């Protein structure tokens, strides 16, 4: 019975995103938290050492960090927000770097867990972005003006307002943070699941099923997991960029009256 149970393939699921406390019962520190801490330290160290001896003619590390910074500054903040975007560059750069680190941790050996697949991380980041864009919108257009411009955009037939107003309100106030959170969380969640499935499944096929079918299918599965790992790396960078860009677009939209 015990042998039969061990040879049974345990299909990866949500349970694989729950980890026991690292330092035994009663402590709270888990693997996702370790990933968060390591990722944060890595990002901080990367920028710190790049900027410590900043020179006019940059070295490799400084060039890398400045390129990252310059990309968010010029391609995200300036493009999506405009000249005022410079004020939000620190937040957007931190956000992008933090997300890249916590997403990429999903394909870094040993860690191999994207901390952003835990909904808590995208959630609090989405809430911060939500607070920022609502705050700057209210400060720029006034409380009434902000919601009036949001719910009753000019240039729309008045008859549509009863339909449009609640939709616009929900879209801005509820769906924006929700979609930010869910898009990132479940991209990472699904990606991690697929990697788990191909790797653990391949391993199971090779070690437990064996035989011609087991070896053939297991090899294909493991090879495919390598391809998927690269694909997953691309998705992780892309999703970090999407989250950052959308945050910038929301801030930019709140700063301008026109919709």
């Amino acid at each position: 019975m015990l042998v039969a149970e061990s040879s049974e393939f345990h299909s990866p699921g949500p349970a694989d995103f729950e980890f026991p406390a690292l330092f035994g019962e009663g402590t709270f520190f888990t693997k996702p938290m370790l990933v968060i801490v390591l990722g944060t330290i890595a990002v901080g160290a990367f920028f710190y050492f790049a900027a410590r001896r900043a020179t006019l003619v940059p070295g490799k590390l400084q060039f890398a960090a400045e390129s990252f910074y310059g990309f968010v500054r010029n391609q995200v903040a300036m493009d999506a927000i405009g000249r005022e975007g410079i004020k939000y560059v620190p937040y957007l750069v931190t956000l992008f770097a933090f997300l890249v680190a916590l997403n990429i941790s999903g394909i870094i050996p040993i860690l191999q867990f994207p901390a952003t697949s835990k909904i808590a991380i995208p959630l609090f980041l989405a809430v911060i972005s939500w607070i920022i864009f609502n705050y700057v919108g209210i400060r720029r257009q006034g409380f009434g003006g902000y919601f009036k411009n949001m719910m009753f955009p000019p240039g729309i037939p008045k008859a549509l307002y009863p339909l449009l107003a609640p939709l616009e309100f929900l879209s801005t106030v509820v769906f924006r943070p929700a979609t930010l959170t869910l898009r990132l969380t479940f991209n990472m969640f699904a990606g991690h699941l697929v990697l788990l499935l191909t790797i653990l499944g391949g391993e199971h096929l090779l070690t437990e099923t064996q035989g011609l079918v087991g070896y053939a299918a297991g090899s294909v599965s493991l090879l495919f997991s390598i391809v998927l790992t690269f694909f997953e790396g691309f998705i992780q960078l892309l999703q970090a960029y999407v989250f950052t860009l959308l945050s910038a677009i929301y801030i930019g939209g709140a700063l301008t009256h026109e919709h």
Partner: protein
Amino acid sequence: MSSMTILAAEDGPSPLLPHTSELIVGLVAFALLFFFLRAKVFPIFERTYAERAASIEGGVKQAEEAQAEAQRLLEEYRSQLADARSEAARIREDAKQQGQAIIAQMREEAQAEADRVTARAHAQLQAEREQVLRSLRDEVGTLATTLAGRVVGESLEDDERSNRVVERFLAELESAQADDAAVGTAGTSGKDG
């Protein structure tokens, strides 16, 4: 029983439920990272950007200045070259004129020298002629005296003899005069030439 509770019952907590501890750890980590980067890193990047932009602009400006300076020097050299060319032409012209003047002057001097030599030759000829005439006159006097003595010494009755003497004298005189005239003509023609 909803599928959600089944899932939760089978596989633990739903992935839609945030863990409070993860929320706190993530938020703290993000906040620390944000404030650290904003304080220690981003100002340095912005400063480096500004300095780099300034240095590039400065370099461009410097290059433009150098270009303008080079252009200015080129113009200066060109004008100097043109000046030098006209100066050279002027000097050549002067030299030509001076050469012509020197040649004219030398010619004049040579002419004057030649005139002087000619004049001296004339004067010398004149003096010689005077001397010849003087000595001739002395000789004529002596001849006249001699003739008179001879005339007086001869018999005065014999007219025929007397006439002969006179004739002879005159012939002698004439021959002397012819010689004298020959000398005088030669002297006059030399003076005219």
